């Protein structure tokens, strides 16, 4: 039925009364729609091409492996290594996920299973609106509120506790308790991805048929058992998809991280020391960069593009597989 009508309506226009004018309008409209759609494709290809083209001198002269693993970033001697920025990006994103995922899953469970109706709607709306707050706001809060708190109440006491300890002493101590660093950036990123993951997960939970829940409660399950044995298996990989979408955001987030990450070019073993991420490095240096340094930054952009694109690809596959049947 639909197949027939669709063909009737769109593919083969019925012979028009005034073929010349109407057919021309029709063709122009169809063509422009087609072109605009192709433009979207062209932009993505263009972004990738610009990054690869701009980063090519670096990949050619230093070699991709050298560029990715070297940890020297020295503008004066034109030596560029991406590892500190890549490691910083991964560390901040990891910290963000470690904090953000449990909290957002908790919020999603609270909103779908526990909250009384009068509380449900306001909190859900607030969470969704907070996803729209621009990232510089999170950055300013991180710089002016969170960083001083971290410096005074986390770094200073922690330095005394872990001093001299074998492994913890390296990971958790900070040379200068300034509050800015990889850990602070991770916390800010966590706050930024919580609204996002929470609202996507809530949507996924909401789509699970109520009958499943009711039958589980009917055989005497507690709320936790319903969540653990009914909701989570049902939602399954699409929750992982939602988390990966959040991860993609965390990896590419620029402004908030630039405020609080400390922007140091070297690699540090401690998560409380300043570092940098790919995006913050680009934001800090690109406007003053020239020559090979600009190529190096574009090569960093290329790495970021490929990583976020791969993550998005996997996330889409995971979410699509659940929604398909």
């Amino acid at each position: 039925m639909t197949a027939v009508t669709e063909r009737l309506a769109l593919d083969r226009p019925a012979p028009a009364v005034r073929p010349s004018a109407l057919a021309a309008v029709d063709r122009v409209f169809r063509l422009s729609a087609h072109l605009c759609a192709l433009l979207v494709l062209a932009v993505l290809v263009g972004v990738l091409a610009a990054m690869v083209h701009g980063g090519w001198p670096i990949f050619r002269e230093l070699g991709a492996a050298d560029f990715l693993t070297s940890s020297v970033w020295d503008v004066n001697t034109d030596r560029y290594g991406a590892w500190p920025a890549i490691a910083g990006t991964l560390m901040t994103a990891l910290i963000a996920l470690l904090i953000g995922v449990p909290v957002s899953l908790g919020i999603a469970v609270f909103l779908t299973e526990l909250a009384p109706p009068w509380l449900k709607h306001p909190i859900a709306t607030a969470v969704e609106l907070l996803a729209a707050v621009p990232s510089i706001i999170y950055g300013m809060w991180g710089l002016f509120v969170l960083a001083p708190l971290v410096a005074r109440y986390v770094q200073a006491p922690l330095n005394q506790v872990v001093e001299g300890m074998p492994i913890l002493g390296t990971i958790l101590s900070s040379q200068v308790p300034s509050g800015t660093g990889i850990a602070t950036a991770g916390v800010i990123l966590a706050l930024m991805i919580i609204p996002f993951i929470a609202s996507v997960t809530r949507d996924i939970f909401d789509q699970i048929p109520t009958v499943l829940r009711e039958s589980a409660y009917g055989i005497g399950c507690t709320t936790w058992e319903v969540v653990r044995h009914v909701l989570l298996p049902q939602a399954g990989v699409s929750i992982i998809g939602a988390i990966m979408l959040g991860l993609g955001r965390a990896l590419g987030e620029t402004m908030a991280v630039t405020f609080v990450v400390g922007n140091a070019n070297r690699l540090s073993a401690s998560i409380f020391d300043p570092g940098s991420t790919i995006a913050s490095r680009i934001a800090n240096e690109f406007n003053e960069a020239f020559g090979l340094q600009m190529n190096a930054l574009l090569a960093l952009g290329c790495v970021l593009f490929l990583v976020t694109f791969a993550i998005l690809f996997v996330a889409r596959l995971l979410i699509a597989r659940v929604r398909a049947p």
Partner: protein
Amino acid sequence: MAAVPAHLSACEAVPWRRVRRQRRVADRLMRVLCVAFTAVGVFALGWILAMLAWEGVHALSPRIFTEATPGPGSEGGGLANAIVGSLVLTFLGIAIATPIGVMAGTYLAEYGKASRLATTIRFVNDALLSAPSILIGLFVYTVMVQPMGSYSGWAGAVALAIIATPVIVRTTEDMLRLVPSTLREAGAALGAPPAIVIRSITWRAARAGMVTGIVLALARIAGETAPLLFTALNNSSWFNANLLGGVSNLPVTIFQFALSPYPNWQQLAWAGALLITVAILALSVSARLLLRRRTTR
């Protein structure tokens, strides 16, 4: 009562009371954790907004809207040029993105459907939707700023348009798909070719939803900073209508002023941050109201 499974009833020693207690404790623990997580999340996010409102309201004054951004170390000053520049860039960006996004969304919903090209474009659109915005800035820098030789308002507008387009494409397609196909069939039965059916029937039926998408796109680009850093950058002088030069705008100004050592710059940054957040939240709320009115009617 005989419902106890065989393997359990075989061993008499199953301590049911303990099992029941464990289940109850696990349940309580999980409930408390979920409530605590929600409280922590809402508290942290509320703290951010409260801090913003507190600092912002204190920094607000009429001269924010009348005076240009001050130079380093000078007293006073406002944000007038940045506000005007932001409005111009945002609306230019939307003006570029709207026709492209609506037409591309129309292609996906009405022409392409499940074809391979449409599926690819749908995926690419999703990729652009969540691509790091700083990469869009880099892209526009290499294709516009570098060849033209200077930072320009046009480059900023194009960068914002690239970020807004995927939002519009996505909502347009979703909204067009909600239009019942009987409407299209009725139009086709009257002899209208597809272009006429789409323009005078499908678009009209989906108008509220499509406008919602454009409003959401506005909210999305109004606070974008990263793509403007390398494109529109800034311009400390009072607003000049020349879009071929750098154009001052709120997000970049906030970024530069917040990181500066001058207290009056930091104050201005808070004021600007409050203005931008209020504008974006107002846009998001109106988008929701628009959509709700459509669905209840």
